């Protein structure tokens, strides 16, 4: 398996000169291609800060983050924007879409930023809308879509640029159960069938239950990582045999 995300000793400190508060404290994180991982923890545990740093939206005060071998902490602000466009898909909690554009235009938007041709855009939009099951909502504005439908369009947009991985910050937080399951089904299927890597922060037990790997953060530190547990189980089983 390929390592997509490789974060070494990353820390983020607020108020470093007065009373330092570690939002993220000396975190090591490795994510392989095709993982479906949930980042969980109580409010203020540093989930969003960690996600922002991995997504190149924020910079760590210490440590390095390698995405596909590129140390993004060394990139300039402009280089980071281009890097995000080409490598990372984002799904936010809400207000994800551009309200004046239709669902199709919102998905096309990211490809227009990538200077994709009209034909490429059309084909990709067709595929993505089929995957999220919203072929009949192509020309609807976000205000005419339900919250769940908007989040599905946001997932399509995140995937439109063919990113290395998708970061989702509390994607189901504002959704009812049915919409949340629907969204999770789509994300899980894309992960399974297209081998797309997902890393999402969540409080939502429904999301946690679906994740194949769960990383628990408390006070900015990783206190549990199910990948390590399963690795230990695998190693123990190997020793027994």
């Amino acid at each position, binding site marked *: 398996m390929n390592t997509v995300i490789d974060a070494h000793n990353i820390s983020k400190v607020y108020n470093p000169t007065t009373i330092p508060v570690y939002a993220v404290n000396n975190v090591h994180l490795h994510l392989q291609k095709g993982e479906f991982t949930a980042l969980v923890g109580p409010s203020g545990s540093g989930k969003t800060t960690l996600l922002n740093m991995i997504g190149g939206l924020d910079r760590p005060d210490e440590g390095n983050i390698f995405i596909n071998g590129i140390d993004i902490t060394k990139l300039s602000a*402009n280089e980071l*924007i281009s890097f995000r466009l*080409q490598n990372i898909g984002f799904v936010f909690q809400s*207000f994800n879409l551009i309200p004046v554009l239709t669902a199709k235009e919102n998905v096309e938007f990211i490809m227009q930023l990538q200077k994709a041709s009209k034909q490429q855009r059309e084909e990709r939009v067709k595929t993505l809308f089929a995957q999220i099951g919203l072929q009949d909502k192509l020309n609807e504005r976000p205000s005419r879509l339900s919250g769940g439908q908007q989040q599905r369009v946001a997932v399509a947009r995140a995937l439109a640029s063919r990113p290395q991985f998708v970061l989702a910050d509390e994607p189901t937080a504002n959704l009812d159960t049915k919409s949340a399951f629907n969204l999770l089904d789509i994300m899980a299927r894309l992960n399974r069938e297209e081998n797309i890597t997902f890393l999402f922060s969540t409080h939502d037990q429904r999301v946690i239950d679906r994740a194949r790997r769960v990383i628990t953060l408390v006070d900015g530190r990783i206190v549990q990582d199910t990948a390590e547990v399963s690795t230990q189980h695998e190693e123990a089983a190997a020793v027994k045999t």
Partner: protein
Amino acid sequence: MWLLQLAWKNMWRNRYRTLITMAAIFFAVILSVIASSLKEGIFNNLVKNVVSFYTGYAQVHKRGYWNEQILDNSFETAPATEQKILRQKNVAGITPRLESFALVSSGDVTKGSLVAGIDVEKETAITGLKDKLVQGIYLKSTDTAILLAQGLAERLKLKVADTAVLIGQGYHGATAAGKYVVKGIVKFGSPELNDKALFMPLAAAQDFYSAYGMVTSYVLSFNNTAAAEASVIAMRSSMDSSYEVMSWGDMIPDIKQHITADSNNMKYVQGILYMLICFGIFGTLLMMMVERKFEIGMLVAIGMKKIKLMVLLTVESILTVFAGCIIGLLVSIPVIYYLNRHPLRIGGETAKAYERFGFEAIFPTSTDAAIFINQGLVVIAMGLLISLYPVYKVIRLNPVAAMKK
């Protein structure tokens, strides 16, 4: 192209806000165009009134005449010189004058007067002298008669058909003396001219002053009076150095100073107007930026380069400013033309004061295209300047902070 389409869509995302901004710009353009056009129109009318009294828009003299206005500084008329002047761009007409002073006497009253020998036909074409006639009849070029200004006639107790005796100093110290019949009385708005002026045909004046074939000035009229100053400057470089070419502003500097001072005051008023508009546009931009803070942060987060975002926001501002400005200009054009054809009329005491000075009591607008262009450009420039605010906010934008609720 897609950026332009997105800007257009964004512009109408909050229809009322955009319409309010456009309305602010629309009224700004209309108000500033009307204010500028009225200012120009009033000043042009004032200049027209003043120069048509006597000086004309420009004069050509022998060099040094204006500083020492004596007959010895006159020059010989030459058809070639007149033709050269008439060939100058924008020059519509020319009339010669021989001007000096003389004592005018009637009975036991004697007054000093300004004697102007004129080409009777050309003079009236430029200064409308014939229209100022209140008694008697206008001069013919062969007459040896005079026209007296009303104030001077009253002081001398002279009426039409009476005889006035003139005595003065002629060309090169010759004695000038003669008796002339008063053929008509003319009335001037300017008290100074009304108390002093006396007109006679050019040939009669040359004979009176023994200045045969001489004139002291050529008075010029222009096709485009707004370009008179530029035409004078052009003429200066093309005329023989023995002549001086003077504009009305050089000859009546106090009027020019008055116009300059009033123009400056007007600039303050316009400045305040522009500031109000700026605050109006800025207010809506401020609201827009607050409203779209999360979205703008999200756009940068998903990979939209800041430069593209700046272009997007600037195009949105430009479209709004342009639309308001163009509609404002389109509406202001017929308004200005209407007020030019049907000028505002002043009433009451002010109107009487205007009429006493021989001015028509009106406030016409100027239809000079430069006014529309300049005001449009000023408002657009203001809009562009204010649209730098969103650009500044984008430069400083931190997507994480922008997306924080």
